[in-house]
């Protein structure tokens, strides 16, 4: 287990700055910091790695979303970082995420003592990252029309759309590939094909579980809670409630805007954690802080942010917060691609081998397991 840790931030004007350290007696010099930075730059990869710098045995962590930050855990001499790899990565993730939103709330000692971690992205968070990456979102739209397309052709199309030279299709499509929405495979010797494996639908659903719980165990809260949710989804006429099925082909559609905003909340780990615990039942700030291991101040701020997006609601006369709407991202099999594949084979846009492989991929992902 680490006996200490420090957080280093790269600044274009001041170089490497130690932003946090524990214990205070930990001494670091410019050369050591430079070596740590150099090793990370040289390796190129992100995540956790082992470094021996001066007399220190370090496990140092970097996060792809925060390239200027390095969290270094001080291990015992000869201690193998792999033994606690998951824990160290989780703590590293927690530290970089928190230091970027509330630097004053980062307490390294507490994090090490209580082993506070941040889990890796959940499935729905991965799907959410698609809609907060504009090029990934337009690529998904294109793939909904094409089903399967040559990577080179897609790359050209995207370059024209975004007017950007030197686009790396794999980089742009990263949220789609990581969430399993797209798959890239080499077909034959020269063709690299991109397949649409899943489609994604966003909507807000009523927080059924939390309402059920409040009806059973919190009757004084339940009435106001149900009234709020009812008003959002089906208010009395002539008001119109929430309707996720209105056409969203207009880029200015409120549904598209809502999907983007809410996806940003889902993709944010602290917002997601809090939203996720409220799916089960209404809770007070202190209860949420206790369950999530997040500082009270942060929980309060996140709840306000979720409230302004109509995701949470503060129940009057109590200290409870509840989920007002449950943001949901569901993936489904894109059945509509079947006639597209058929047409493409007939018109010789794709080979029979590509079509066969596409059907195999769909069966692998969506077929019933024997």
């Amino acid at each position: 287990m680490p006996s200490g840790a420090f957080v280093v931030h790269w600044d274009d004007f001041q170089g490497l700055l130690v932003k946090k350290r524990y214990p205070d007696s930990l001494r670091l010099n410019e050369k050591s910091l430079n070596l740590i930075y150099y090793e990370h730059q040289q390796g190129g990869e992100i995540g956790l790695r082992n470094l021996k710098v001066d007399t220190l045995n370090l496990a140092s962590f970097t996060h792809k979303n925060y390239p200027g930050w390095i969290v270094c855990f001080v291990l015992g001499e000869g201690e193998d970082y792999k033994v606690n790899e998951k824990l160290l990565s989780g703590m590293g993730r927690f530290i970089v995420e928190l230091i970027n939103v509330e630097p004053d709330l980062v307490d390294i000692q507490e994090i090490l003592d209580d082993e506070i971690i941040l889990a890796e992205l959940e499935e729905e968070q991965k799907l959410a990252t698609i809609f907060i990456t504009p090029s990934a979102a337009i690529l998904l739209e294109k793939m909904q029309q094409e089903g399967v397309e040559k990577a080179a052709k897609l790359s050209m199309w995207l370059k024209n759309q975004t007017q950007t030279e030197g686009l790396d299709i794999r980089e742009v499509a990263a949220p789609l590939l990581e969430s399993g929405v797209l798959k890239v495979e080499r077909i034959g010797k020269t063709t690299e094909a991109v397949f649409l494996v899943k489609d994604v639908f966003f909507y807000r659903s009523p927080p059924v579980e939390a309402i059920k719980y409040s009806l059973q165990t919190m009757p004084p809260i339940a009435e106001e809670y149900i009234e709020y949710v009812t008003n959002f989804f089906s208010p009395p006429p002539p008001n119109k409630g929430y309707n996720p099925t209105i056409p969203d082909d207009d880029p200015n559609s409120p549904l598209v805007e809502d999907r983007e905003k809410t996806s940003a909340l889902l993709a944010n780990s602290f917002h997601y954690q809090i939203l996720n615990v409220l799916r089960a039942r209404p809770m007070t700030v202190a209860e949420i802080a206790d369950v999530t291991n997040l500082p009270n101040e942060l929980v309060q701020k996140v709840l306000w942010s979720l409230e302004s997006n109509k995701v949470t609601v503060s129940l009057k006369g109590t200290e409870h917060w509840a989920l007002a709407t449950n943001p949901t991202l569901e993936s489904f099999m894109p059945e509509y691609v079947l006639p597209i594949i058929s047409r493409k084979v007939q018109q010789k846009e794709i080979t029979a081998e590509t079509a066969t492989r596409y059907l195999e991929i769909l069966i692998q992902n969506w077929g019933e397991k024997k």
Partner: protein
Amino acid sequence: MIRSVYILGQQSNLVYSKEYAQIESKNSLIEYLVNLTQFLNNIDLEGKIEYMNLAGTRIFYKVVPDYTFIFVADKADDTEQIEEKVDQLVDVFLREFGHLASSGQPLEGFDVKVDEIAVTMVKVAILGFAGVGKTTTLHLLRGETLPLIHDPTIGVSIKKLPEEVENANIVLWDLAGQSRFSILWAKMIANAQVVIIVTDSTLENVLRSKKLVTLVKEEVPDAKVIGIANKQDLPTALTPERVGQILNIPTYELVAIDISYRDRLIQIIRKAILEGKAEAKPPPTT
């Protein structure tokens, strides 16, 4: 650069002033600013920052209840940056010193805050292959005694120039020249306003250093690039003119172990900073 900062009260009285550069006809300027403040008190700027050009300077002003804040800056300065600094100063003053000013007490500690806001930071990167004298150049600029043992730089060594130049803190980045650290160079010269490419004035090293010029021009196209023909005391040294021709950048002679070159080098950096500013795009007129 920000040349001076003034805060005037409701009666157009001078509440605070700080000058960072010598001002010709200072009294006339103050008189002008007092008149300007009287005029501004009669119009509504809706809390916005406005500016006007006066000779080579640009006067930025913002009016808040009871006070008018005025920054005198160079015309070539980035308008948005100066406006940001005006806002920062207004914010700090009203939050921490407004009550002292209104009760006529001395604004203790305000000078430091003004310096923090008005004094800018300029990054000067010193780049070159191993052993050409980059760290010696850094020591020379800092007026330090040379260490007796050569200790190769690891990654980068970042030090401040002891004195301010053109109202800016100069941060010197002495980049490690060993080839294994070359992967860091592009990242480390980011945001540099001036890049000094140091050569040891041998033909072989100067030819190799052409690569560095290309790298700098690609990575920081807005930076001023200057060449240093170091080790001019050695018999094999190419002349600074010849080094400059090969590198195709303005190049100056140096003997980094000779302290008498210090002032000259600082003047070269000062000139590069000023030229860099002058070449910056003119801000849109309002």
